[in-house]
């Protein structure tokens, strides 16, 4: 099938799991013979995705601008210049916008003045691609692509599959941005089919947006195996270390529960003073977390690495003895699967979608800091436990494959296009 896909990040430029998911998913869909045109809201460097055609929505906004590079058969990948990142808040966006303005001396004229306006602008530009990129189905990821996808649907008359990786409620808790919620609501109402990354997310879509349950399918994410894993594993074994390392990897934001990680660290350190805690990531709660570490008096044991990418992530996984994901609300959560690829045992919150499929992980309620601390201590104290979990997890990971997810997504495409694809 020909798929016009709207995303917002893609390797190597990304800040979260959505880019990882889009990469694994599109590779597997291409492997099944589907042809994907991927529209991206940022100017991309050449992505390492020979199976994709990248489309630039920016080119649409300026009539007469040059077209795309000829792509390998089956795939197009087009970036749209935009200041969008997947996890922006309105305030973040304003900062970025002003920074860009400074860079160009004056309003650069490309970007919209606020986040929502930018999403709408991307929507007009990106949607216009549908006029010329022939497709059988439109597949869009999360709220930021909704205006573009709806526009594309209107222009092409093709069915829309909206893939929900995260809702505004996940990201912001009770402090939701009403405009974003409205865009989500519109997208969920208009979409022909909806894919939720977990039953947790499916329930939230039904309960918070009153969406018809009949059009929602759950397709779990998966994890791609990277070659580097083996290399770093060797390094890990070769390197003598005395202090155990417990890793938090993710945006340091409300959604990810960084404060529970630090409170648990404080408890663990009372029992096992030699442990090191690493917070890898950046986000709007970073300053607050540094203060919390200070007030608990554990500054020498908690390390902030800032935002990590690519090889740095592989390296930090390979150096860790335990990965903890204490998310307050996690629609899925690919990072634990990545940790498992490095034989790192994982503790995840029950408030995550990935908890629905992982058996060989320890689970906690994100608010139960004592339970979390107790489990961290157990994994660090009992190498036999860590080893057993890692060994079983290796087996479990074999069954969590993008190929399987892609088959289920293709099934949703077929439901959305009941009469089969047009030539």
């Amino acid at each position: 099938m020909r798929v016009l896909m709207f995303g917002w990040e893609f390797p190597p430029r990304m800040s979260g799991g959505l880019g990882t998911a889009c990469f694994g998913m599109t590779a597997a869909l291409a492997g099944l013979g589907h042809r994907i045109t991927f529209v991206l809201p940022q100017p991309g460097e050449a992505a390492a995705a020979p199976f994709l055609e990248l489309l630039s929505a920016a080119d649409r906004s300026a009539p007469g601008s040059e077209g795309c590079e000829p792509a390998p058969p089956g795939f197009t990948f087009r970036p749209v210049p935009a200041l969008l990142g997947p996890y922006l808040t309105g305030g973040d966006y304003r900062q970025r916008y002003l920074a860009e303005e400074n860079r160009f001396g004056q309003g650069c004229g490309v970007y919209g003045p606020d986040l929502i306006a930018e999403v709408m602008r991307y929507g007009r530009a990106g949607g216009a691609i549908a006029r010329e990129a022939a497709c059988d189905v439109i597949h869009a990821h999360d709220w930021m692509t909704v205006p573009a996808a709806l526009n594309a649907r209107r222009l092409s008359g093709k069915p829309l599959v909206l893939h929900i990786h995260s809702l505004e409620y996940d990201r912001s808790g009770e402090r939701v941005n009403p405009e974003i919620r409205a865009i989500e609501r519109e997208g969920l109402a208009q979409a022909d089919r909806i894919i939720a990354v977990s039953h947790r997310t499916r329930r939230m879509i039904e309960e918070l947006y009153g969406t018809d349950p009949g059009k929602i399918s759950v397709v779990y994410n998966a994890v791609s195996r990277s070659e580097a894993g083996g290399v770093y594993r060797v390094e890990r074994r070769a390197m003598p270390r005395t202090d155990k390392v417990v890793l938090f990897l993710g945006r340091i934001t409300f959604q990810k529960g960084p404060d529970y990680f630090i409170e648990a660290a404080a408890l663990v350190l009372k029992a096992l003073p030699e442990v090191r805690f690493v917070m890898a990531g950046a986000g709007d709660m970073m300053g607050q977390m540094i203060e919390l570490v200070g007030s608990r008096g554990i500054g020498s044991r908690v390390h902030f690495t800032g935002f990590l990418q690519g090889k740095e992530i592989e390296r930090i996984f390979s150096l860790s003895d335990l990965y903890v994901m204490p998310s307050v609300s996690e629609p899925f959560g690919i990072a634990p699967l990545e940790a498992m690829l490095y034989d790192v045992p994982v503790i995840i919150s029950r408030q995550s979608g990935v908890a629905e499929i992982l058996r060989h992980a320890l689970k906690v309620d994100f608010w139960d800091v004592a339970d979390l601390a107790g489990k961290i201590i157990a994994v660090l104290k009992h190498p036999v436990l860590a080893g057993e979990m890692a060994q079983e997890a290796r087996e479990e990971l074999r069954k969590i494959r993008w190929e399987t997810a892609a088959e289920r997504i293709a099934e949703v495409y077929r439901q959305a296009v009941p009469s089969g694809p047009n030539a």
Partner: protein
Amino acid sequence: MPSVCLYFQVHQPRRLRRFSFFDVGRIHHYEDEAENRRLLDRIAHKCYLPANAILTELIGAYGGRFRLAFSLSGVLIDQLQRYRPDVLESFRQLARTGCVEFLAETDSHSLAFLFSAQEFGEQVLLHAGRIRELFGQQGRTFRNTELIYNNDLAEAVQEMGYRVILAEGTEKLLGRRSPNHPYRPAGCDGLKLLLRNYRLSDDVAFRFSERSWADYPLTAAKYAHWLHRAAQEEAVINLFMDYETFGEHQWAETGIFPFLRELPGEVLRNRDFCFRTPAEAAEAHAAAGEIDSPGFVSWADEERDTTAWLGNAIQQDAIRALYALEPQVRRRADAGLLATWRALQTSDHFYYMCTKWFADGDVHRYFNPFESPYEAYINYMNILDDFEQTLTGTQENSHGTDAR
């Protein structure tokens, strides 16, 4: 004349409470009494009392022709004495009929034979004493926890004076031979081995209410017909199963109680047939050959081995840590500490740590009070940690798990 030999295992573990790392050194009682009480009451209501009533009635009705055996774990007896003496009394009433044999086993429903000969011997003695006191019987038949069995066990049990031992009728032991005869364990001349006919036993225990089964619904007449057919030239059909099959694993709604009620009549309809207890069956029939079992077999899972309790690294780690405490426990010579250590030996604690999730795993999960085997291990190791601190005298001895 072919016999039908019924033996029901009666056991409920004393489940451990949630015990966090932060409880170590602070809390010294390990049992979840409320949960154990709740489950015991439920099972007493759904299974023990109604099934005992039916069996008592049947024994009365058939005037000695209907006979059977129970094995009550010491762990269950503890709980019945503490919470449900009425249920214990109903078992005593069955004992008084003279038609019920009570088997011997390890008091703690433990895996002690695999880890400590001394502890195994003491637990068997302890259990024998309690059976004598409660039911007035001197046991002649031994069954090890979960029918775990090998040649060495047979020898040890013969040495202790038992005349009969039970095991799983697996092909691993039998090859192509029939399970429906007594056998002689390799190296034993004073002991007979009765082997569970797992197909016929599991027809009741597992398949009774399975609607997709070709033989659903199973009636007593149909089942008795199978027994009559199977046993034309054979000696004894051993139907061994958990007592909780009646009313708990197979709910009352499935018709399991009418099945039980009608079974003796249907079996005895064929005049060639009779019921015998294990000791009686072993005495009535000659051994058909020798069974050699250098390795351990059990009645659990498809594998019929010990991997349900000792199959992975965390199970092995936990049980080794437990038995490593034996010298210290003995040195302290404290009845409370010994009882606590024994309570921690119950096989169920290790069963909960089993990671064989798929296929068999479903059964494991159904009976697991923990969310995962890892949680079971962590909880157990925290408790063991606290117990060890108590043993080494770094804490007050204020243990509350002793049930006696």
